[in-house]
C-alpha cells in the first residue's frame, strides 16, 4: 500500500468541500437562470451550512435513537472518503478500485439506514425505493468501473493515465451518466427523493447539524460524480482543462434536470435494467472488439 501525500493532492483533498459548495452554488444559479428566475447568490450554500450548524436538534421521536444522531456523520465520512481515490489519489495499492467500489456502495447503504432510523413513513418509503433501485444501479456502477479499468489495463486507480475514453467506451460512458442521474437525484431519475411525492423521503426528519451533514454529503456526492466522469471520460491532467471539463459536465447535468420531469419507480427500474444490459454488453465487447 502506498500513501501518496504530495502537497498538491493533499491540498486538493481539503479543498474538496469548498469546491463542492461552489459547484452547488453554480448549479443553483444556472438552474434559476434557465427557469427564468434570478436565483440565490453563488455563495449561498456556505451560508446555508453555517446556519444549519448553528441550529438545535430535531424534536423527532427518532431522536432517542443514537443511530439517528451518528448516521449523518457516517454518511458524510463515507462520502468524503471516496475522494481518497479520485481524481488525484492519495491511497493506492493493487486492486484498490475494489475498495473504492465497496466504499461507494457503503455510502449508498448508509443512506438507506438513514431512512430506516428516521422513524418516518416517508423515510421508510424512500429507503424501500432506494433498495429496489440499488439492485440495479450499484451493479451497473461496479461493471462500468471494471470496464474502464480493464480497458485501460491497469491494476490501481492511481495509474489511470488515459484520456478521451469517452470515444473508446461510449456505451459505458452513457451508463456512467445514467448512474450519476440516479445517485445525485436529478430528474428524470430522482425517484428516491421525489419531493412532491414523499417530501424528500429520507431527509424529512433531519434538522440542524444532522441536516447539515446530510446536505454536505449530497454536495460531495455531486462533486464526486463530476470528478469521476471528468477523470474517466476526458482524463485531463492539466488543472485548467480539468476544471473546464467539470463545468461542462455540471452544465450537462443541469440541462438534464431543467428539461425533464420525474419517472415513476417502476419506470425507472425498467430503464435501469436496460442500462444494466448495455453495461454488461460493453464489458463483453471490450474483450473482443476494440476501436
Amino acid at each position, binding site marked *: 500500500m502506498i500513501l501518496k501525500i504530495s502537497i498538491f493532492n493533499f491540498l486538493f483533498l481539503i479543498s474538496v468541500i469548498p469546491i463542492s459548495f461552489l459547484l452547488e452554488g453554480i448549479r443553483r444559479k444556472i438552474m434559476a437562470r434557465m427557469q*427564468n428566475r434570478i436565483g440565490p447568490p453563488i455563495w449561498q450554500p456556505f451560508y446555508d451550512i453555517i446556519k444549519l450548524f448553528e441550529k438545535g436538534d430535531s424534536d423527532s421521536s427518532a431522536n432517542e435513537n443514537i443511530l439517528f444522531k451518528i448516521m449523518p456523520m457516517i454518511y458524510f465520512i463515507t462520502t468524503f472518503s471516496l475522494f481518497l481515490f479520485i481524481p488525484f489519489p492519495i491511497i493506492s495499492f493493487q486492486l484498490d478500485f475494489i475498495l473504492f467500489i465497496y466504499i461507494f456502495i457503503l455510502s449508498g447503504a448508509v443512506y438507506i439506514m438513514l431512512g430506516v432510523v428516521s422513524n418516518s413513513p416517508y423515510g421508510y418509503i424512500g429507503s424501500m425505493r432506494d433498495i429496489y433501485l440499488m439492485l440495479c444501479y450499484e451493479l451497473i456502477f461496479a461493471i462500468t468501473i471494471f470496464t474502464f479499468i480493464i480497458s485501460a489495463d491497469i491494476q490501481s486507480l492511481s495509474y489511470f493515465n488515459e484520456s478521451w475514453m469517452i470515444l473508446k467506451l461510449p456505451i459505458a460512458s452513457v451508463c456512467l451518466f445514467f448512474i450519476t442521474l440516479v445517485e445525485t437525484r436529478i430528474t428524470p431519475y430522482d*425517484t428516491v427523493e421525489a419531493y*412532491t411525492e*414523499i*417530501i424528500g423521503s429520507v431527509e424529512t426528519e433531519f434538522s440542524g447539524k444532522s441536516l447539515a451533514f446530510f446536505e454536505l454529503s449530497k454536495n460531495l456526492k455531486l462533486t464526486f460524480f463530476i470528478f469521476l466522469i471528468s477523470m474517466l471520460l476526458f482524463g485531463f491532467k492539466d488543472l485548467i482543462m480539468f476544471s473546464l471539463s467539470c463545468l461542462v459536465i455540471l452544465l450537462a447535468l443541469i440541462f438534464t434536470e431543467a428539461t425533464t420531469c420525474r419517472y415513476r*419507480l*417502476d419506470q425507472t427500474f425498467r430503464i435501469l435494467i436496460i442500462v444494466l444490459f448495455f453495461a454488461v454488453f460493453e464489458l463483453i465487447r471490450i474483450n473482443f472488439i476494440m476501436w
Partner: protein
Amino acid sequence: MHDFKLPIGPHHAAIDEPSCLRVSMDGNYIVEASLRLGYAHKGIEKLLEGKRIEQGLHIVDHICGICSVAHPSCYVMTIEKMLNYEPTPRVNYIRTLVSELGRIQSHIFWAGFMLHEIGFETMFAYFLRDREHVLEILERLTGNRVHFAIHKVKTVRNDIDNDDINFIKKKLDELEKNIFTYFRTVENDKVIKARLVDVGIISKRMARHYSLVGPIARACGIPIDIRKNYPYEAYKEVDFNIITKKDGDAFSRMLVRMDEIIESIKIIKQIIKNMPEGIIPQFTPIVIKDGMEIGIVEAPRGENFHLIKIKDGKIDRARIRPPTFNFMSIFTKLLEGREIGDVPVILASMDPCYACMERVVVIKNGSTEVMTGDDFKNKYI
C-alpha cells in the same frame, strides 16, 4: 410492509390546500384511501344569511382566489334572474371577457402546477411567467390581481376603453406565441406521457354515474359545458367549440385544459372585436322581493351552482355547490391499486379547490342527516 398507513396532508408538498388523505399500502401499492376534509371551512353559507344583496356579493367575491370570477358571476346572475333584469350587451361582454381571462389564468396555473407535481420545475416557472400577462390584463381592467370584484348587480364596476383593448391585444399575442410551444412540448414529451397516460382513468359511464362536470367530464368524452348548453352573459354571440377527448386519463385532462386555453383566447379575440358601443349603467340600490332562484355558470373547473332564497330583502338561505364537490366522491376510488407516486398526479389532475367546496354536513344522533326532496322543500322553501 402490509397495511402500512401513510398520511398525505394536511401539510404535504404535493397538495396546495389542506386536506388529510390516509392511504393504506401493500408494498408500494395503495389498497384503500380515505379523505378527510374540513381544514379550509369558512362558513360562507352561514355568513351570507341575513346579509343584504350588496353585502352578500362582497362575501361571494372572496370564496376562492382562483375561481374569483365564477362565483360573483353566478351570484349576480341569480339575483338578476330574480329581478327579471337583462343586463345591457356591453355589460354582458365585459363580464364574459373577465370570465374568460379568469379561465385562462386558472388553467395556466393548473398546467404549471400539474407539471410541478411530476418534477418539471422549468415548465412550472415558464407557465407562471406567461400567466403574468393575463394577470396584468386583469389588473388593468379590474384593479386587482386575485379577487377581481368587477361584478355588480345590473352592471359592472369598471368600463373599458380603446387603450385597454389595445393592451389586451398586445398581451394576448405575447401569450399565444408561447402557449403553442408549451402545448407542443406537453403533447410530445415522452416522460410527461409516461407519467400521465393511463393514470386515473375514468370511463364515460363512470363519469355519468358520479355526475362529473367540467374539463374532467369533457376528457371522458361527455360534451358538457354550461356556456354552450345554457348560454349566459355573451356566450350566445361568440363562436367556440366544446373540447372533448376520449381516454379519460390524466393526460386527456391536460390536453383538454390546454385546448381550452386556446379556445378562450379565441373567445376573447371575438369579444374585443365585437364589443358593443355605449356606456355601462350606473349602480343603483336594489329593491328585491321575496323568492328563490338558482343560477349556473361554467367555472374553470366545471359547473358552478348557486341557490339563493330572499326574505324581507335579505338573504335567507344560500347554497353554493362548486364543481370540486362532484369530483371528491370519485377521487379515492381512482387511487386504489395505484402506486404512491401516482397520488399527486391523480389529485392534481382533478384540479380540486377545497376553499370553494368545504361545507358543513349536519350530523344528528351521531349519523349524517340525509334529506328527501320533500324534507328539503319543507325546510328550505
